[in-house]
């Protein structure tokens, strides 16, 4: 798998203990699907827009020949309000590239924000992602809904969720996100892979 994205994907950049979501996802999938050969390549580059990622999709995704690509994107476009139609087009092109290469894509929804009124068009851009994913038939990982659920469930301190102090960027949040992704992926490939894994895949949290 390739995890294409911006800083959420790049994660800590901390070499000692990589707690980025792709690293956690890899460990988790290996645990749940012991027979399967699993590798999650982190291609996150902080601060990149969907357009920047589109430009490197051939080199960073297609050339790696993954089975699945998780595309975490569009936050820059939403913040910069580049135009909804433009974002839709960029997403469609990216999805098209991965489809042409026979790679399944999981698109990742925008994060939930404590005060998203700061960006008046934020929901519109989320709608663009939802609509594009739907019309293109790719999975959309419901990051926003998940984070929102966490925020109201008070399982996490706000700092853990969105890293508001800027210093401890969301290791807990990333970890849970990776586990949820693993749930989805295992469910998706389950019928094929779990047999080889001896049916020992158990949902964890």
């Amino acid at each position, binding site marked *: 798998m390739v995890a294409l994205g911006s*800083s959420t994907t790049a994660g800590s*950049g*901390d070499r000692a203990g990589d707690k980025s979501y792709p690293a956690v996802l890899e460990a988790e999938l290996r645990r749940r699907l012991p027979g399967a050969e699993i590798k999650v390549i982190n291609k996150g580059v902080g601060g990149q827009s969907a357009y920047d990622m589109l430009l490197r999709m051939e080199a960073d995704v297609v050339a790696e020949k993954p089975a699945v690509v998780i595309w975490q994107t569009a936050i820059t476009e939403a913040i910069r309000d580049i135009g909804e139609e433009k974002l839709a087009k960029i997403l469609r092109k990216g999805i098209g590239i991965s489809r042409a290469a026979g790679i399944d894509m999981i698109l990742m929804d925008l994060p939930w924000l404590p*005060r998203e009124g700061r960006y008046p068009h934020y929901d519109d851009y989320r709608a663009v992602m939802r609509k594009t994913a739907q019309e293109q038939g790719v999975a959309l990982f419901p990051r926003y809904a998940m984070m929102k659920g966490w925020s109201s469930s008070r399982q996490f301190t706000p700092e853990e969720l969105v890293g508001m102090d800027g210093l401890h960027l969301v290791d807990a949040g990333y970890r849970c996100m990776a586990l949820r992704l693993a749930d989805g992926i295992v469910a998706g490939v389950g019928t094929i892979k779990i047999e080889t894994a001896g049916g020992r895949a158990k949902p964890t949290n």
Partner: protein
Amino acid sequence: MSSIASFRHFLLFGRPADGAVRLEKVRDARIDVLRGLALMIIFINHMPGNVVAAYMPHNFGFSDAADIFVLLAGVSAALAYGGLIEQRGLALAALKLGGRLWTLYIAHIAVFIIVCGVVATAVTQTQNPLYIETINIQPFFRDTVEALIGALTLTYQPSYLDILPLYIVLLALFPAIYAGVRASPLGTLLCSLAIWQAALAFELNLPNGEAGWFFNPFAWQVVFTLGIVIGRGALLGVGLPRLRWLDVGAVTFIVLAWWAKTSTGNPTGIGALNDWFDSVQLGSDKTNLAWSRLLHIAALSWLAIRWLPAGSAMGRHAFGRAFAAAGRNSLHVFCVGIVLSIIGQIVLAETSFAPGVQLLICAGGVTFLTGLGIFLSWYQIITNRGASAEPTAGRGAALPRPSLSLR
């Protein structure tokens, strides 16, 4: 000899046809005014999502203020250091260039630290994690030591802090490029294009964290080299020939770019062009430059040199004077502009992009930045006046300050 032959001779051999190298004393107001204007555009564009940014040139053509900035950096480097090389020799010019590079480097580091501080304050005060994302400053908070070393070695560049490193590298290359342009502008341009294309083919770029530099120096040296050729031409007083077909070609290209950028989808209906229209409308490859960008900036410069009134005419108008003052102090105005634009981004988000606030910030910022330029120009005049009063007593009449001096 016709101007075409003379121009051709310059392009091939780096000097006018009659062989005489007369150095013109050039302080072309056009450069200052355009540079000041580019600085203001950069300021506005660095607050993405604001209404004014929708009217900035990148929406109407392939190139934008960054191209103008790099091109003019080449022009003014040729005028300043090229002139110095001709008059005082390479050694002195290299010394001055080294001093300038040091100043740029220190400025970059200072802006880096100030921006980190501004964003850190904003994030802790407002609890909005996205400020870290937009400026890509996460590495600094995550692993400060590594990010600091990265900043010092120019291998970690947060968003918006990527132009000065490019400028530093390009200016360091100036003596080599200028030597080439002296021998043959056309040959140097071809070399420069070849390096760009080779870098594209082999995916060469300098490192910036996990990715490359936002402005790939292997690509952007082309624009800088073009600027040096123009500057060298100005230094030698080479006039552009009146080539009507080229004028028409340049205007046509710019109109075409306008049309391609502002229409939605592919207005020609020719299927083969779909991808091209998409690619120019979605954004242009700023990292590696693009032919469309290069041709656009080349066409703009041709028209600017041909038609913009030379000399001081542009600097006479009140707006022209204000922009020229900013352009003459471009490093200061640029650095302050970067910090202001990042503060502006934060204020815009905190006020939910209220239209009134957007206009206020844009107008206020531009006023402040031009005011800063005017203040610095005034400051230089009064301090120079004071300084020249004493030493000139023993040396007779005050020598005119070398017009090619550095700022």
